[in-house]
């Protein structure tokens, strides 16, 4: 079984965001880049599956769509344990453009399970995994919070709004994963980091693909009014304010 984990290279979650060119572009100066948190969990679970000898997982590939600057993030994924990496050489565009690049990688590679995160922490699109599965015309399971392999099929827990479902799905499929899929993201060990340097990282050209949307402009949220402080022995006053000023009780 071959697994492909799609990795989005995103700004560290503590980044103070800034925009440039009249608020039409994200200003990435000084930004620290990380593996998108959900992709990191997907990779962690994938490594757990591979290490359990009862699973027929033979190879784990990680892929990202992005410029050369995204390679350290791919190396990090290799250090966590992926066998090889692919970078599609493009300034990543909208979700449709990215999904089209990933579909082309899948068509060239024969993967049984393909994982994407439920969203990326930058544009919060929640779109790439679903689009990819539709382009490939294969099943997708979203909001995956646990996954195991049983008789060559994946047995998955997914969150539905108001509960959980256990579903099984034959390969190939796209799993769109969220919290729960792995407990803690795995951190690369020194040995992994050394080995990652020698693992193959293939760069492939982008294919032609149309964007369907365009991020036209960014706006910072309105600054919030300062917090009204109430003394700890004036709980009654807080209740009064919530009831009569904020009108939320």
């Amino acid at each position, binding site marked *: 079984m071959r697994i492909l984990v799609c990795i989005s290279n995103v700004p560290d979650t503590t980044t103070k965001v800034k925009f440039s060119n009249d608020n039409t572009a994200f200003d990435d100066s000084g930004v620290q880049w990380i593996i998108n948190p959900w992709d990191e969990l997907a990779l962690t679970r994938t490594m757990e599956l591979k290490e359990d000898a009862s699973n027929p997982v033979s190879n784990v590939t990680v892929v990202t769509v992005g410029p050369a600057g995204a390679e350290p993030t791919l190396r990090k994924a290799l250090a966590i344990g992926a066998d090889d990496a692919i970078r599609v050489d493009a300034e990543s565009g909208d979700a449709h453009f990215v999904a089209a690049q990933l579909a082309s990688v899948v068509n060239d590679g024969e993967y049984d399970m393909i994982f994407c995160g439920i969203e990326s922490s930058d544009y919060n699109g*929640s779109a790439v995994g679903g689009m990819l599965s539709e382009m490939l015309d294969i099943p997708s399971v979203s909001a995956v919070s646990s996954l195991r392999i049983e008789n060559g099929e994946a047995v998955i827990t997914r969150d539905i709004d108001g509960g959980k479902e256990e579903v099984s799905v034959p390969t190939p499929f796209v799993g769109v994963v969220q919290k729960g899929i792995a407990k803690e993201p795995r951190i690369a060990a020194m040995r992994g980091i050394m080995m990652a340097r020698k693992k193959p990282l293939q760069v492939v050209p982008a294919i032609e693909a149309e964007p369907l949307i365009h991020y036209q402009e960014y*706006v910072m949220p309105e600054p919030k009014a300062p917090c009204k402080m109430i003394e700890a022995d004036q709980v009654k006053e807080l209740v009064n304010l919530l009831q009569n000023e904020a009108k939320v009780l």
Partner: protein
Amino acid sequence: MSVLVYTENWDGKFKKLSLELVSYASSLAKMVGGSVTALSIGKVEQDELSALGAYGATNVLSVDDAPGGLDNQLYTSIITAAMEMTGSKVLVLAHNNTGKAIAPRLSVRLKAGLATGVTALPESVDPLVVPKKVFSGKAFAKVKILTDSAILTLAQNSFELTETGGSASIEAFDPGVDVAGVRTSIRDVQKQEGKLLLSDAEVVISGGRGMKSTDNWGPIEELAEVLGGATACSRPVSDEGWRPHEEHTGQTGKIIAPNLYMAFGISGAIQHLAGVSSSKCIVAVNTDKDAPIFEAADYGIVGDALKVLPELVTEIKAAKAQ
């Protein structure tokens, strides 16, 4: 130009979320000069269906013999058939697990630009430009749709219900799809019976590591009950197993927008705020006067949550009793 809205049901009932979607679609339809058709999949009583008319749907298409459980490919085919039948150019869904699962597939199938987590009506309709949050709530973006057709998923609690009166006409709809192609099989379903879902709650009472131990959650649960709300927690609290994972709010957990969010012993890390900063009113209780939660809060108390909570329960009960 007609707007199609997918109204999901829960055991045959629509929730406020579905009505928000119809309200939004109806305001949108006025902007583009068209009418709203709602699509319902699964068994729903006629009264419940026609009640969607009160929020602006003129028509309801009902597919009542769909197989149980969400198969993303099957739902994509059903909704595509409804878009084609009604000649709709805009599709509105919820930005919940269902919407996130099927909207991207529909975007590819219909070649329609997809804007997810939309927070308000478009600021222009030709071209269609809609606002959404990006960078987990740190900024907003204006998203321009470049295609003829558009798909929007609406962030929950971001649009007020608007009752227009009227009832919708109901039409049984046969999407002509082949269920033999369904490849995901449902083995087991566990519903959170009788419990208010965190995402639906208007009031959320939340605890962080400052609550010290799982044994101290009594007053949080009591307060939630008194206010008809739900309980939530920060990530370390669910990681520790003090509270179930469904309660974890924040960037990597649930993103919520209740009317009232009360945070007890939560520091207000940026990843936590990403999930709660859209709440209409935030109350924070924390022993540290410099905790970042106070920058996001509307009302704050510097103090011991374990002492403040029981008093708050008493005072709120007293206020409610009046």
